């Protein structure tokens, strides 16, 4: 018998604020977390905007001792994890240690700090560098840090799968609790803006504002031309239902299903990519034993890329048929940008907040309909609607498609 899995805690470090309350309030009021980047020197390049984390005070969450050794991503993840653990009111005395795990998605982790360290190596005498310089430079060192400070002893795992990293991590954590391998798992993602990551996207032509186009995060809009990069850490506490009930935890929602498919490289046709995207959604609903007629909200991957948004829209249309005119579609990347390895976790949290408040944030920066996008987009103002079941889509530029089904908790 599979265990049921619920969400009992939320932690957020985001361009829209560093608390659950700020994030949601900004999102539902249609605010944008995107502004000219201040942490990178982008003078040689044409794309200038980003969703940077601006108001994090890590010392509030992690204390100031040893903080100087921690990289940006570790501060993000540490702070978000702390908020989530507090929110879930989990005991901090280590009594749950062996029942607790951490599974985090991160595409490039502390990569930028790792290359900074290498820069020190080639410019100096490497054998004279302090070991503390490399204290926090492995791609998964932020996860190790969190496991150490919160005494997590069940398991620690880091998954790297490009844009779908955090959805894959949450799906994996969900499956582990379902199989009773842990009672509580800290899961979600972390990703940070750096010149390295910026250039990867810039050189691959994925950013908005290239070649004289308008620079804006405008998912599904006719003029969309790429994404705006973002950073942060979005964390949820997944917990086995019985365990949560016994300690009278506040239950935000229930995770019911996970599905993923892979296109495998870039040689596939549009039709094939649409079919695979459809399959991931289908598999997640099948896993959740929820019929497509019962989906009340779709949180779209939609990050403003010309082709990928269109693939997703067509996949939704094809899977849900005529019924897709009735299912509201949200795209929170219009507000926060593309947070890469933690984007799926951001969407999941937004969806959970919608389930709890019966309110769906609208897509901002939208002005002109694209005839290729035939969906019931949530536009102009938030949509009040009771939501029982929602689908969260995460679809990678490289071909990973990962989806979660999240539902209102009911006995």
């Amino acid at each position, binding site marked *: 018998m599979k265990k049921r899995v619920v969400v009992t805690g939320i932690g957020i470090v985001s361009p829209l604020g560093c608390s659950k309350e700020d994030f949601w309030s900004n999102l539902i009021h249609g605010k944008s977390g995107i502004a000219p980047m201040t942490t990178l020197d982008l003078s040689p390049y044409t794309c200038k905007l980003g969703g940077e984390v601006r108001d994090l005070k890590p010392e509030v969450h992690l204390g100031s001792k040893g903080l100087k050794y921690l990289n940006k991503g570790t501060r993000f993840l540490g702070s978000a994890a702390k908020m989530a653990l507090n929110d879930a009111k989990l005991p901090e005395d280590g009594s749950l240690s062996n029942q607790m795990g951490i599974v985090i998605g991160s595409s490039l982790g502390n990569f930028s700090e790792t*290359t900074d360290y290498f820069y020190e190596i080639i410019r100096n005498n490497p054998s004279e560098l302090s070991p503390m310089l490399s204290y926090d430079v*492995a*791609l998964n060192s932020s996860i190790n840090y969190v496991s150490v400070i919160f005494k997590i002893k069940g398991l620690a795992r880091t998954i790297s799968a490009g844009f779908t990293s955090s959805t894959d991590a949450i799906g994996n954590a969900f499956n582990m609790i379902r199989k009773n391998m842990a009672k509580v798992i800290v899961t979600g993602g972390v990703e940070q803006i750096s010149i390295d990551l910026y250039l990867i996207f810039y050189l691959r032509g994925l950013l908005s504002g290239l070649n004289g186009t308008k620079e804006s995060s405008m998912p599904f809009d006719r003029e969309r031309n790429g994404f705006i990069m973002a950073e942060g850490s979005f964390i949820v506490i997944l917990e086995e239902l019985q365990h949560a009930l016994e300690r009278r935890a506040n239950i935000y929602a229930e995770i019911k299903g996970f599905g993923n498919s892979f296109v495998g490289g870039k040689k596939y046709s549009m039709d094939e990519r649409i079919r695979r995207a459809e399959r991931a959604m289908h598999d997640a609903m099948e896993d959740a034993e929820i019929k497509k007629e019962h989906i009340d909200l779709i949180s779209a991957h939609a990050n403003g890329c010309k082709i990928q948004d269109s693939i997703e829209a067509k996949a939704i249309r094809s899977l849900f048929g005529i019924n897709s005119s009735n299912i509201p579609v949200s795209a929170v990347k219009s507000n926060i940008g593309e947070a890469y390895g933690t984007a799926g976790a951001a969407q999941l949290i937004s969806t959970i907040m919608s389930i709890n408040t019966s309110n769906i944030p609208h897509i901002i920066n939208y002005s002109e309909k694209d005839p290729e996008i035939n969906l019931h987009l949530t536009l102009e103002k938030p949509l009040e609607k009771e939501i029982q079941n929602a689908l969260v889509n995460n679809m990678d530029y490289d071909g990973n498609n990962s989806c979660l089904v999240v539902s209102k908790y009911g006995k």
Partner: protein
Amino acid sequence: MSKIVITGLGLVTPVGIGIRESWESFIHGKNGANDMKSFDTSQYKVHRSCEVKNFHLDVELENQIKENTIHKYLYYAAREALQESGLLYGENNLNRERFGIAIGTLAAELTPHERLMRRDTSKKDNGFDKIVAAVYPPNSITNVLAQYFQFEGPTMVSLNACSSGNHAIAWAYDLLVENKVDVVMVGGGDMIPQTEFTHFHNLKALAPERCQPFDKNRQGLMIGEGAGVLIMERYEFAKKRNVSIIAEMAGYGLSCDGFHMTAPHPEGEGAVKCMSDALKMAGLQETDVSYINTHGTGTPHNDKTETTAIKRVFKEHAYKIPCSSTKSMIGHLMGAASAVESVVCCLVLRHGIIPPTINYETPDPDCDLDYVPNVARELKVNHIVNNSFAFGGNNATTIFSRMG
């Protein structure tokens, strides 16, 4: 519940290219350490590591994958493993959407990046160019393998430092048991980035000459490079294809020390949980285990802690189990280590020979188990425990068994 079996193996190691050459070296106790060639070590106190030697791929692929040889190591090992399992030249009636990939690595993306950064040190981002921007994120590994071998199912890259390979295997095992896929290509690959070399060097964790696990005078680990790949599939699927079965993957255990960023828990708490959970999942008693492929890095801390943990789990029986460290020959392959060692475990089951711990000279009272010193041993083996305990406390143990 379906059994999960291994039907193909592939290796690229510092002591051989391919399974045959590597295995010959393993059972003859060949030392893979060499003077470092990948980069200039004149400013360091240590100048040795275990590098892959004489590695060439077919010309065609050399041209296609120029930038990053971790892809090449993995490509080679994957092709060898797929060939053995009969899945290389895809039979048309198989549903390749049920073929997944899971690869572990510590720092796959670093080496090509370092190469470019060395070109121009005046400004950090001067070294970038289009080609590298397109290949180096960790998930590029699975993208490349998926493309070449037409694997169209779920993929995953595990970044769990030195237990990455076992994590990938555990992930694959779950997916196969849940019947979400028929086949998973699992493995690990790593090269020797100067970044990691410096990191270990400045932590004083590197051995100067050779790797001596469990020896009283052990001085540290040696970094190695290479790749290991296993083809895991559902038993029914393998049977239907009428392919020979090398071993059964019987279970795994995971844990996390939650103790320190670089030091293991002194009582081996995480290691104990991890081995015990693995035995439980595999439904085995302690006395069923006939060989342990240790994490055995050769650092003073690890070897002592691991010995303590093994004794805590296996009690009196611990003294009767041969425990060797293949890292004595090939060094520590980091993210690839536990994948390569899993391949070794399957070869032990196949050949009934246990590879030795070489460079073993002086017994250490803190490490008093049977480490199979210096000479390989013939032994019929039924169940093998394969340990990996990473920096930061990410632990993963896998168990491989003779097919009953």
